[in-house]
């Protein structure tokens, strides 16, 4: 029995992935564990391994977008089985087509019932097919505007125009780090209406993925933002000690590391903030996986990614510090894999390290329920007892989904976090080195 190659669910939000490149030819022998297909989902790539050794039969061509859980290929155990799989396709001179009929059906258990038999078919007019073929464009990557989503002539013309604007975009996955640069492909200055356009930035790739995720968040969440400051007088002393012993710890502890460490502890103490509203349930997650927003490009204009530190509550500060360094470096190099980009349950965004601002209204990364923004650390006069003294103050902004967590509960979480931030977690003492 041939083994099915099924598109895995990459990340919590990704429902559609792009099949960027088949790594083995139709009819080629593949060994179990070999990469047979590269998949791109939103901001990351995934290398699909062969589940068994055998002969590859490709069902979906590369370059197309497809739903997760779709069968995109088969691995036959032997030549006979392969021959049986490909029988009746001999006259298909154009090679594999977009997934059709039963092969494209949603395999998800309990998924939408009563879907039309045509679901998954790509409708395109003859001229659209012809133009796309001539231009080397995959119809699956073009959105149709005709009846039933039919791809028409002008849709292909527009896709060709878009490609002209960003020639690096058609195969972004071979070099993920190329995507952001492609977004800034300068074009000749041209007149658009009466306004002079200096440059056109394609709203595509990562830019579009971020944009759509942000809009989706604002469309489905009830965001409420609370802000304040942490007095880091005590934490600063700890950090001073840690930095002095950087070489012995093997990592330079940053305030961001300390915040993630503290947030993980606070989430463990206040699990409701570590949850997602899914369907008719609020699911409080068994793991605390903290996403850390990493801006790309020196000026932060090349997009952002959110790698995830898994089980952060079970990690020591040093482990967290090493993880953030590693993930940050790989994010900037475009080397993050799917597992590191998915499964977050809460996000920390440290805009203070880049800029000058204190407070913001962070946008929740769905389906999470909360995000903590950290502003610029600054010495400020504070009132302590009857006196005024100078203290290093760290501004924070927490956005929580009011559908899940009410204001009072969010305050409770912030109280827990404030206690950890200002008095430090007891386990930090173990790190103190003299």
């Amino acid at each position: 029995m041939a083994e099915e190659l099924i598109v895995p669910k990459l990340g919590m939000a990704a429902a559609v992935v792009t099949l960027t490149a088949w790594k083995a030819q139709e009819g080629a022998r593949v060994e179990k564990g070999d990469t047979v297909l590269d998949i791109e989902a939103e901001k990351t790539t995934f290398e699909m391994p062969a589940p068994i050794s055998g002969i590859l039969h490709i069902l979906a061509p590369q370059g197309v977008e497809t739903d997760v859980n779709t069968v995109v290929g088969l691995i036959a155990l032997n030549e006979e089985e392969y021959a049986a799989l490909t029988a009746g396709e001999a006259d298909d001179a154009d090679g594999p087509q977009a997934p059709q009929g039963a092969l494209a059906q949603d395999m998800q258990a309990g998924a939408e019932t009563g879907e039309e038999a045509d679901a998954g078919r790509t409708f395109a007019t003859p001229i659209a097919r012809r133009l796309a073929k001539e231009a080397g464009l995959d119809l699956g990557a073009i959105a149709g505007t005709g009846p039933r989503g039919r791809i028409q002539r002008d849709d292909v013309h527009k896709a060709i125009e878009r490609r002209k604007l960003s020639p690096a975009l058609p195969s972004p996955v071979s070099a993920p780090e190329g995507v952001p640069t492609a977004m800034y492909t300068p074009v000749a200055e041209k007149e658009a209406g009466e306004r002079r356009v200096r440059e056109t930035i394609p709203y595509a790739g990562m830019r579009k993925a971020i944009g759509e995720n942000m809009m989706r968040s604002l469309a489905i969440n009830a965001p409420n933002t609370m802000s304040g400051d942490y007095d880091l007088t005590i934490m600063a002393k700890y950090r001073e000690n840690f930095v002095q012993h950087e070489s012995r710890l093997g990592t330079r502890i940053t305030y961001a590391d300390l915040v993630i460490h503290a947030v993980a502890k606070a989430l463990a103490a206040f699990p409701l903030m570590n949850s997602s509203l899914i369907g008719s349930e609020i699911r409080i997650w068994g793991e605390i996986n903290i996403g850390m927003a990493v801006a790309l490009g020196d000026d932060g204009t090349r997009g952002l990614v959110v790698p995830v530190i898994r089980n952060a509550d079970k990690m020591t500060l040093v482990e967290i510090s090493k993880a953030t360094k590693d993930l940050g470096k790989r994010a900037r190099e475009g080397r993050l894999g799917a597992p590191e980009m998915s499964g977050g349950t809460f996000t920390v965004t440290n805009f203070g390290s880049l800029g000058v601002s204190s407070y913001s209204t962070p946008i929740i990364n769905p389906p999470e329920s909360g995000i903590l923004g950290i502003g610029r650390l600054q010495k400020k006069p504070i009132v302590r007892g009857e006196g005024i003294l100078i203290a290093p103050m760290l501004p924070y902004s927490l956005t929580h989904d009011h559908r899940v967590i009410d204001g009072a509960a969010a305050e409770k979480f912030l109280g827990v976090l404030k206690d950890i931030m200002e008095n430090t977690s007891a386990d930090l003492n173990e790190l103190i080195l003299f």
Partner: protein
Amino acid sequence: MVRQQRSMLEVLNTTLVEEMERDPKVVYMGECVVGSAMGMTQGLYEKFGPSRVIETGLVENTMVAAGIGMAERGYRPIIDPMMADFLTPAYAAMTVAGKNRFMHGGKLNIPMVILTTMGGYLGLGAEHSGCPESQIMHMPGLKLVVPSTVNDARGLLKTAIRDNNPVVYFFHKRLMREKGEVSEDDGAIPFGVADIKREGTDVTIVATAYQVKLCLDVAEKLAAKGISVEVIDPRTLVPLDIETIVKSVKKTNRALVVDEDYITCGVGGEIAMQIMEHAFDYLDEPVKRIGAKGWVPATSVDRFVLPQPQEIADAVTSLVHADRVEVNIQAGKSFARR
């Protein structure tokens, strides 16, 4: 080349005179030709006499059958049953006319023209309003001419009379009084050469006879809304210049066929099919067709049965996914009130 404005009837009349003067074998025979019910035989009897202008009575099959015999014996008969609708009794003879040359190994020529009027929009009732083009197209061996302009009418009639095969020549009653420019040279127009009556880029309309005029009027209105329509007149349906049509469809990617015959198994269906056969890879929309609905035209219901300008405009706007455009063009004013 001097050009002047003349009506289609006037031009058909002078063309007949020219051809009968040019070739003494040309004979005119049919219903009410001496009295000239339609007008294009005005003065022919007086000029050419009873041996070349023959009144037959209401015997369509007989006149066509006689025409075949005359043609096979070296004459060039023009058979006139007055209206295309009246031809049905002559279909027996017409099928013979189409086949005889082939049945005799090409040894027989049948240089016969069946020249008559067709078309509605005049409130003349069911038996005087038909455009049975597809019935003629379905008979092998017959050529079919359907002119839309005065100059085409003249040039195609000359070619029809000079052709050695049986030719059916239908001219539209609503065009008889339409005036147009006529070239002063011989002006014979070859069969199977379509004419692009209006150039455009968005939609190709293939239209025949009076529908060409309606389509040109609609195209003018749509142009004001930024929709560019190309109007192609095949001029002869047999032979059909599919190449010109296909070339246009390859440019516009959208096609509409407008014809006055009944829509089922009609001219639109045939041309749409040929477009699909020759230009499938260039189509961006399913080909549309407009024709007469499947019930009979009559004084009071012509506008519900026959193609209407608004219908044509709606088909075009739907092909380009544009909003509806009100064209306010009226088809079918009585020619008596010209």
